[in-house]
C-alpha cells in the first residue's frame, strides 16, 4: 500500500486531508511539525511526503532541505502545500527540491493527480 507522510500543524486540516487520502486507499502517517516530519521521513520511509510550508519554528522549506540532505530519504518526492499561490513560493519549492507544489485549500482531484504523477516518476 502506498504510504504518504502528511506534515501539517493544523489539527483540522491534518485530520481532514488524512482521512480523505485514507479513503482513496493510501496509508497515511502524520507529523505535526518540521522536526518530527524529518524524523518520520527517516523512520517510516514513506513513498511520498505532503509538506505544509507554514509550520512553526522550522518551516516546510527547512524540513524539505533536511529530508533532501539525508541519503536515506533523499529520493522521496515531496509536494509542498502553501496557502498562497505566489510565484516566489513556487520558486522556493523548486529550489529546495520539492517535486511539486499545490495550494491550500486542497482541491482533492487536483492533488490526487499530482500525487499520481509524482509516484509514477
Amino acid at each position, binding site marked *: 500500500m502506498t504510504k504518504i507522510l502528511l506534515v501539517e500543524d493544523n489539527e483540522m*486540516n491534518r485530520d481532514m*486531508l488524512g482521512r*480523505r487520502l485514507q479513503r482513496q486507499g493510501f496509508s497515511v502517517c502524520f507529523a505535526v511539525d518540521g522536526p518530527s516530519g524529518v524524523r518520520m521521513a527517516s523512520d517510516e520511509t514513506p513513498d511520498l511526503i505532503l509538506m505544509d510550508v507554514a509550520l512553526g519554528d522550522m518551516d516546510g522549506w527547512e524540513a524539505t532541505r533536511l529530508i533532501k540532505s539525508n541519503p536515506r530519504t533523499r529520493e522521496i518526492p515531496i509536494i509542498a502545500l502553501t496557502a498562497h499561490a505566489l510565484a516566489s513560493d*513556487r520558486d522556493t519549492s523548486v529550489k529546495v527540491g520539492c517535486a511539486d507544489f499545490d495550494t491550500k485549500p486542497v482541491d482533492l482531484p487536483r492533488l490526487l493527480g499530482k500525487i499520481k504523477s509524482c509516484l509514477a516518476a
Partner: protein
Amino acid sequence: MIYPVLDWFIPASVRENSELQQRARMFLISHLFGPFLGHTITVYLYLLDPAPTYALWVLAGSISLFLSFPFALKWTGWYNTLAILSVQNLIFAILWGCYHYGGLSSPFLPWLLTVPLLAFFYLGSAARQRLLVLSLIAFNFVGFYIAYAQTHSFPEHIPLSHLSGIGIISTLCAAVYVSIMALYYGNVVASQSELEREVRRHLATARQLQEAKAEAERASRAKSEFLAKMSHELRTPLNAVIGYSEMLLEEAEEAGSGDHTADLKRILSAGKHLLTLVSSVLDLSKLEAGKMELFPERFELGRLIDEVGTACQNDVLAHGNRFVIECPDRRALLETDLAKLRQAVINIVNNAGKFTRGGTVTLRATVAAGIVEIAVRDTGIGIRPDNLAGLFENFGEAKGATSSKYGGTGLGLALALKLCRLMGGGIDVESELNKGSCFTIRVPMSLATTLKQRTRTDPGATVPENDTILTIDSDASVSDQLRRILSKDGYEVLTAVTADEGLALALANRPSAILLGALQPESEGWRVLQGLKSSETLRACPVILLTAQHDAAKGRAFGAAGHLVKPVEREQLLRALKSLRAGVDGNELDAVEGVV
C-alpha cells in the same frame, strides 16, 4: 478704489515687481495730489501781487510740471529716472520759492522736510539711493548759495511782512501732504503684514493637510493589513467547513443516502461562496497594498475560455439564461497571469449572469495587435448612467432594491478591474437600462512582448524623415522640460496635454517619435497607444513611454518601443532617440532595448 486709477499709470514692466509697484503707487499719489496743494501757495502769491514777476511764473511752472510725471511714467516706464527728476524738481521749486519769497525766513522752508521723505518713498532707502538723494540736495543748496552770493541779498518781490499768512498756509499744506503720504505708507505696511499672516495661515493649512494625508494613508494601510489578516484568519475555519462537507458528501454519495446529499451540497456551496468573498477581500487588500505578484504563464486563449466556461456555466444557466461562448482565436498564445486573468473574466461573467434573467450572456474572446479582448455581453437589467461611474468601486454595485433582489457586494467588479490594470489593461463598460450591458476586458497578450517580435509583425515600418517629436503629458511642465532639451538639439517639438490632442497632432504632423508621459485618467495613455496602433499611418511611429517607475515589460506589452524613467535626463533622452533612428535605418533595434 484708488488703485485702479493708480495702476492705470503703472506700466507692465514696473508692475512685475510688487515692491516697485508699491513705490510707484506712492509716487503717483504724491504727483496727482501734490501739485494741487502746492498751487494754493501760488494762488495766494498771485492774490498778494496781481502783477507778478517771472519768479511766480517759474514757480507755478515747476509745480505744474509734477502733473506730467504720471503720464511720463505710463509712456516711458523709466520709473527710477523720473523719480530722480521729480525729486530734483521738488528741491528746485522749494529753493526757488525760498530765494524769491523771503530768503532764509521764507514760508516755503518747511517744505524742505518733505524732500528726503518723498525721495526715500520713491527710490527706496538703500545706501546708494540715500547717497544720491543727499548729494542732490547738497548740489541744489550749493546752487542756492551761489545765487545768494552774487548780491549777498535775496530779491524782494513781495515784502516779507505780507508773507506771514502764506507761511501758515504753506506749513499746513506741507503737513497735509506729508500726512497723506504717511497714511498711505501705513496702509501698505498694514496690508503687508496682513499678507504675511495670510501666507502663514496657508502654510499652516498646508501642513495640516499633509498631516491629515499621512494619517489617512496610515489608516488605509492599517485597514489593508487588517483585512489581509482577517481574511487569512477567516479562511482557515472556512476551509475546514468546506473540506468536511466535501468529505461528508463523498461518504453520503458512497453510502447512497440521498436525503443528506442535497443538504450537504448546500453547505458546500454556501461555504465556497463565502470563501470566494473572503478571497476577494484578501486579493483587493493585497492589490491596494501593492503586494499582488504577477506570475506569467504560457497558455492558449482557448484554455482560458474553456476554464471560464466551466467555472461559470452553473451560475449563468441557473437563471434560465443562454450562455454563448465565441472564441475564434482559440490557438492564440498568451503569456500572462492565467489565474488572475481567469479570475477577472469569471467575475465579469458571473456578474452578467447574476443580473440577467431568461436572457443571453455572450462571452467572446478575440486577439488583435498584441491585445486580447474579452467581451461579455448580457441582455440583463443594464446599468443606469449615473451608476456607471461608481461601478468599479469596492462595494459599488447597484444599490438598494436592485442589490437586494439580485444580491452581490460589488467586490467582483472592483477586483476584476484592479487585476486587469495590474496586467497592463483595463475594462470598458457600455450599458443601456433594461437592455443589457457589455463589459470589455482588454489586456496585453504578453506581459513581456519583445521588441523583435513586434517589429517582425510590422515589416513595412518606416519613420518619416523629419525631426518632429510629439510629447503627450497632462503635466505641462514635463512637456516644457522635454521641449527645452530637444529644441536645443534641433528637434521640432509638439506638445499635447490630452489623449485626443495628442492623437490629432500625431495624425497631422506624423512625428518621428512620440514621448508619452502620464495622462489623467490612466486609461487615456492606453487609448493613445491603441489609437496609434490601429492607425495605418502612425503604426510605425515609435513611442517611448515616460514612466514614474521602472516597468519596461509593461511598456513593451503596450506596444511601446521603449521607456524612460522620469525625471528624464538629457543624455538619456537624446541617446534613446538617436538609437531609435539608427535602429530603424540599420535594422538594429536591439540597440534601443539596451539603451532605453
